[in-house]
């Protein structure tokens, strides 16, 4: 009973956070002389108004979900994998690299797609493992190591786009030469979304859910995250577990990068990670690292992203506003958690 009470109290406070976030954005809207209700209606319609828009929401949802799945593994182990952006990028680079090898070859496109996506996962895992190695053997905090690796990944990506992999005679931000259509993840007729990528996302979610909730490995990871010294004393090889959580996260991030290449842009572009890594960090915090809430919240964030496009078109507002909404949502929900804690302590 008590636990249920506690839960519903928690829920109330979270709703409170949501309301505060909406209020905060409303105030900003009023300050820039826009009509808040119109803005929220536009975002809603922009995300759900027709099937194309819904499909676009899912295009964002898939990589966002995968990335956040990966982040749950590192968060469970108590790690702040800020290097996630770089891991997505390197995943995309590996995918592109392998696909380029098969340009003009007679290998079946299906095999090429599979190989290149596997390569993407490998790339993400390698980049994540680097952050892990820096942490466990170099004593570099994963936040700083991750930031550094993000910069290197971006530089590498741009170097390739402008250099070795540039279009003939062209060095442009628009990316590498698009891959021929047979190398694209097959999409629904007339939509940008691929059933395959939705499938990957759902499988990824299921895997991470059971891995963290139901396996010995997941429990040990949790123990490492909650008390690394105690976990070591209980016989858990702690650094190996941290490394593994990095690698798992990298696999997910790499897959997200691979889908960005094979399913969304069909080429490598400079901002291939689309900021999904950082957004994933926000989502992970918002759902308090519980996999069960991941799918709906990621969908909500994706919808905000897509719906937000309407703001500049129709109201001449900056679409960064949806970013403010996302950020303030996380902020206020965490704030309300803190308030709740105080409230509980007082009692």
């Amino acid at each position, binding site marked *: 009973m008590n636990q249920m009470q506690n839960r519903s109290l928690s829920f109330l406070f979270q709703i409170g956070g949501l309301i505060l976030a909406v209020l905060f954005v409303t105030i900003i809207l009023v300050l820039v002389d826009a009509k808040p209700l119109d803005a929220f209606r536009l975002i809603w319609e922009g995300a759900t108004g027709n099937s194309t828009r819904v499909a676009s929401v899912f295009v964002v949802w898939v990589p966002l979900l995968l990335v956040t799945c990966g982040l749950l593994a590192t968060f469970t182990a108590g790690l702040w994998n800020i290097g996630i952006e770089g891991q997505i990028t390197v995943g995309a680079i590996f995918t592109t690299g392998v696909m380029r090898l098969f340009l003009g070859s007679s290998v079946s496109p299906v095999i090429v797609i599979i190989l290149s996506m596997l390569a993407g996962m490998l790339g993400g895992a390698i980049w994540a493992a680097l952050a892990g190695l820096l942490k466990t053997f170099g004593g570099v905090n994963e936040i700083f190591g991750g930031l550094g690796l993000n910069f290197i990944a971006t530089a590498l990506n741009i170097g390739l786009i402008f250099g070795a992999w540039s279009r003939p005679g062209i060095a442009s931000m*628009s990316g590498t030469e698009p891959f021929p259509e047979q190398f694209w993840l097959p999409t629904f007729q007339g939509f940008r979304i691929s059933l395959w990528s939705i499938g990957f996302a759902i499988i990824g979610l299921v895997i991470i859910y059971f891995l963290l909730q139901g396996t010995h490995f997941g429990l040990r990871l949790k123990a490492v995250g909650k008390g690394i010294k105690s976990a070591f004393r209980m016989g858990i090889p702690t650094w190996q577990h941290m490394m593994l959580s990095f690698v798992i996260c990298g696999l997910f991030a790499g897959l997200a990068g691979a889908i960005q290449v094979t399913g969304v842009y069909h080429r490598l572009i400079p*901002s291939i990670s689309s900021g999904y890594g950082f957004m994933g960090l926000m989502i992970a915090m918002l759902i308090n690292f519980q996999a069960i809430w991941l799918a709906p919240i990621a969908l909500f964030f994706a919808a905000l992203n897509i719906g937000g496009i309407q703001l500049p078109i129709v109201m001449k*507002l900056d679409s960064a506003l949806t970013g403010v909404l996302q950020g303030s949502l996380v902020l206020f929900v965490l704030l309300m*958690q803190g308030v709740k*804690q105080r409230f509980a302590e007082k009692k």
Partner: protein
Amino acid sequence: MNKKFAWTVIALLMVMVLVLSACQPAATPAAPAEPAESEAPAEPEAPAEEFVFGMLLVGPYNDKGWSQAHYEAGEYVEEKVPGTKMIYLDRVNTADRPGTTAAQLAEELVQQGAKLVIFNSDDMKDDAVEFTKNNPEIFIIHASGDTIWAEGENYQALPNMANLMGEMEYGKMMAGCDSALHTQSGSIGYLGPLINEETRRLAASAFLGARYCWENYLDKDPADLRFRVTWIGFWFNIPGFTEDPTQVANEFINSGVDVIISGIDTTEGLVEARKATSEGKKVFAIPYDFVGACEEAPDVCIGVPYFNWGPSYVRYISNAIQGKWESTFEWMPPYWQDINNVDMTPVGYVSGPAMSEDAKPLLDKFIAELAGGLNLWSGPLNYQDGSKFLAEGEVATDVEIWYLSQLLEGMEGRSE
């Protein structure tokens, strides 16, 4: 400890939100600029006779450069063609709008009622083509594209697309001439965007103009003229993704360049020239794209070659309304009777306030020569690597110029 951590996170987020909201004022001017817009948001069920056209701008609509030139052309259309209405989305590039594609954003414009969509960047080529194929009932103008140029290398028959481009080569030649007439050190810097055929030919045009005036009007040795090209990687600065044009401009100035010709869409070259001038050096700059670009720093601006998309957009949009749409590729030279006639010319060149009295008649003479048929794309000309481009007496074809594969001999900088 856990709690402390949570508070740290909150503090971090607070900062993030502040940063995000700091981005907000950038958009604020838009609201007062068009109060009518927010009063009545565009609805698909607008009056039947209203013709909505959409525009995807690669940079900010107020960049004092390429995108603003398009934006103002759109306003010009609204003014000249009754019953038209513009909707637009600016900063259409994957760095500014992560996770989106230009084709997807064009769909959104169509959702808002656009019957014709203008893609304003060569970088949107793949998306423009994809969108054109998927939306046969929508008219597409791809500015600076070459997809439907039958002689071109990327030809595809797309009946609902048109390609437009001003023959900016002339504007760049004038800019080159102007800079040669002003340089004291004999060293000119060209602030290049990304590298492709278009940017190569424009840089080469500036070089040809500079060399011509240096040699023929000032009677100096072409060997004494330094013409350096540095590419930043995109049409404007995207921190973390491109080189910083401010830095590039400073490097130019520090290495003796005293006239900076901008090939990018924004005005860093101008700003840095003014800074250097206020510090005692004498540095001039020539911005690009937009007729009002000199305003940023009039005291160092000696001129600006600009696009004037208005008349051609009026032409195409009127045709579309009247059912006379033609899928054509147009590469439009200046209106030679008056290259600054707003209602006629696609490309123009205005002198800046900093233009010297001595140079003015010489530049006018050069423009008159060009109007009279002077063709600088004639032999003998060599590529940058010394290989032969045009033999003595040979004149380059449009295709050779459009798809210029290398910089020219005498220019410094990367060719690809």
